[in-house]
């Protein structure tokens, strides 16, 4: 037997003394930290015609901050403590490097607010390593169908979920003939493609498609230019694809036929908006208002839902697993998130779950105009053998992704 020398004995004594001081406050045992990293690629703003209301600079990050606060309010009763680390940068390399540093410090969860190509790069750089990435920034359809990422779940709805939500409403209102106006950006084409897919899916007729190429300043001439531009065969509704908000704001009330304008402007399908206040949402909105003094956006909501998903999933595990899940291996948690057992109350009137094939968070989609909620899709009558939420976006047969083959879905319960 090795006899401890005087030095180690002294350390032992100090340890014992401090232990004795701590013991009476048994409940105050040091909580397990769960650190979540937030990564955002800042893209410099392009010049826009409609530049009156710029998007908030901390779009997304504030949602993650609120998610951490909400998690901690309950986590302290479980001996857990959530911590957020953030980096916004114009360099993807810097973001990936940061994620590596964080990983060395035990970070196993990332919230990514990145465009699709950057998200793919980040995902690839972590291929086969223990990390779970939550996509709160890219609505790209391919990420949910063909370019499947094995370590990514998506809390932001895909474009297809948005355009399907809009399409269901248009058909429900018997507005089946559409004029599509798309901008010249890649993302505008992606949105318009998604609208075309929706039209096919729900039997809407596209009477004409136009690309916006005008160079003029519409703030002064929309009233003369837009009516002529929209003079086509008669349509029931206009669907605009202008994600940045370059020209789309000037289409409503200026169309040749007096018809509703929908899509990226006018009546807009979105995951979240300030006007959503039903289903207890007023509480979430008010917490966000208090924290930031601004409105909560769809990207904020996606980041919030990502952090909350991690929090709720960990809280549902056995406490003995907490340290491992927090700093070592997140894969059991991903497995759980994709299972039927996971549920998130997301202030949308029903539980939210993940599609096990592509990791997309199932969710009702709000249809809003700037001052009111108009409707929420799925619309009544759009049925599905498992859950009507899967009428929005890519159902299992429409996706090549096989994130979780072991789980079957039963949305009926």
């Amino acid at each position, binding site marked *: 037997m090795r006899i401890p020398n005087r030095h180690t004995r002294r350390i032992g004594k100090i340890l014992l003394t401090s232990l004795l001081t701590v013991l009476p406050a048994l409940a105050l045992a040091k909580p397990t930290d769960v650190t979540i990293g937030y990564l955002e690629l800042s893209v410099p703003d392009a010049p826009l015609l409609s530049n009156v209301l710029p998007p908030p600079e901390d779009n997304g990050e504030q949602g993650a901050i609120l998610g951490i606060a*909400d998690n901690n309010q309950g986590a302290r*009763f479980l001996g857990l403590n959530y911590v957020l680390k953030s980096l916004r940068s114009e360099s993807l390399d810097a973001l990936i490097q940061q994620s590596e540093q964080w990983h060395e410090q035990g970070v196993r969860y990332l919230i990514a607010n990145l465009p699709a190509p950057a998200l793919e790069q980040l995902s690839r750089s972590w291929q086969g390593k223990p990390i779970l990435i939550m996509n709160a920034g890219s609505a790209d359809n391919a990420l949910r169908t063909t370019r499947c990422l094995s370590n990514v779940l998506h809390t932001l709805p895909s474009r297809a979920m948005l355009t399907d939500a809009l399409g269901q409403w248009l058909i429900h209102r018997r507005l089946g003939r559409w004029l599509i106006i798309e901008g010249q950006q890649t993302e505008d084409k992606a949105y318009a493609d998604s609208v075309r897919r929706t039209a096919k899916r729900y039997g809407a007729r596209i009477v004409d498609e136009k690309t916006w190429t005008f160079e003029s300043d519409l703030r002064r001439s929309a009233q003369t230019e837009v009516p002529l531009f929209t003079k086509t065969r008669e349509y029931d509704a206009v669907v605009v694809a202008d994600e940045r908000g370059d020209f789309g704001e000037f289409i409503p009330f200026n169309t040749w036929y007096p018809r509703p304008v929908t899509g990226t402007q006018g009546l807009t399908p979105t995951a979240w908006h300030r006007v959503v206040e039903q289903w207890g949402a007023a*509480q979430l909105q008010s917490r966000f208002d208090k924290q930031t003094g601004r409105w909560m956006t769809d990207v904020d909501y996606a980041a919030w839902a990502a952090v909350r998903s991690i929090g*709720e999933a960990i809280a549902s595990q056995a406490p003995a697993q907490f340290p491992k899940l927090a700093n070592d291996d997140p894969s059991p948690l991903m497995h759980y998130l994709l299972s039927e057992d996971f*549920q998130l109350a997301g202030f949308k009137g*029903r539980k939210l779950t993940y599609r096990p094939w592509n990791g997309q968070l199932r969710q009702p989609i709000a249809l809003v105009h700037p001052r009111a909620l108009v409707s929420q899709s799925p619309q009544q009558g759009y049925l599905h053998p498992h859950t009507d939420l899967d009428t929005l976006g890519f159902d299992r047969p429409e996706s090549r992704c096989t994130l979780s083959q072991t789980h079957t879905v039963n949305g009926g319960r």
Partner: protein
Amino acid sequence: MPSHIKTKNCLPALLFGASLCLSQAAGAATAYISNEKDDSLSLIDLDTLEVIETIDVGQRPRGITFSQDYSKLYICASDDDTVQVMDVATHTIISNLPSGEDPEQFALHPDDRRLYIANEDNALVTVVDTVKEQVIGQIDVGVEPEGMAISPDGKVAVNTSETTSMLHWIDTDTHELIHNTRVDQRPRHVEFTKDGKLLWASAEIGGTVAIIDVDSKEVIKKIRFEIRGIHGDKIQPVGIKLTDDGKTAFVALGPANHIAVVDAKTFEVIDYLLVGRRTWHMEFSPDERYLLTTNGISGDVSVIDVQKRKAIKSIRVGRFPWGVAVKPD
């Protein structure tokens, strides 16, 4: 039939003035309904099953409960950040209790003095001494505290926090948290059995009612609901009521527009009763002949005949009826 007799008495009384008739009517049990979006209470005569009066109260009234002798009605006026005290005899507000921000639901301690209030916006439970009109304790709980119940022996208060999905057990002597129980998503309401051995807790988004053993504070059973033609996600349990004999439970299923009847011994669902739209809270008439349900979206109260297990009437009240409390004769 009391209602028949009363009507008879009422008619001649009308010739001499309404006062006689009114004093007769005051002999019946009365249900008080809080109308969340009308800032009012609707009073329903439980003999005639008709609204007899509407009283203006503070902003966004939600939880309501009587003092033990029914002389006072406590009203959560959520948007006024106060609990109002109404003198039941005169229907006037006699004081505003300090309640903490956004009081939503509360429970009166068996000592008839301490009110345990859930402050929805503030993640707090506030304890108010209703005699001194003072806050005597505040307890940190999870996000969006909602449901409140006190054990029959008065030793424990239980609060539900909706977003944290927990039941928080509070020692009523020390006002310390003694335990937290995880349940399914968005717990809304808790109800002790009369013997204090079990606690029923609804989880609105989880779609379940958990039965918790009060000694171990662990979930021993989960009740699930299934209604033909209604998607499982829309079955969202909120209010729970147990009959006095402890044999039967009623669970309000929110947007499923049904009340589930549950055998409180075997925890099997026996029946589903169709009521108005978005049904949340319930109360029995004093003789347990009727069960009243508040239906927020249809703006009415359904009257269920407890024996026949059937909704027999719906009574239009104010906008978004929320809470219900019943005063006997």
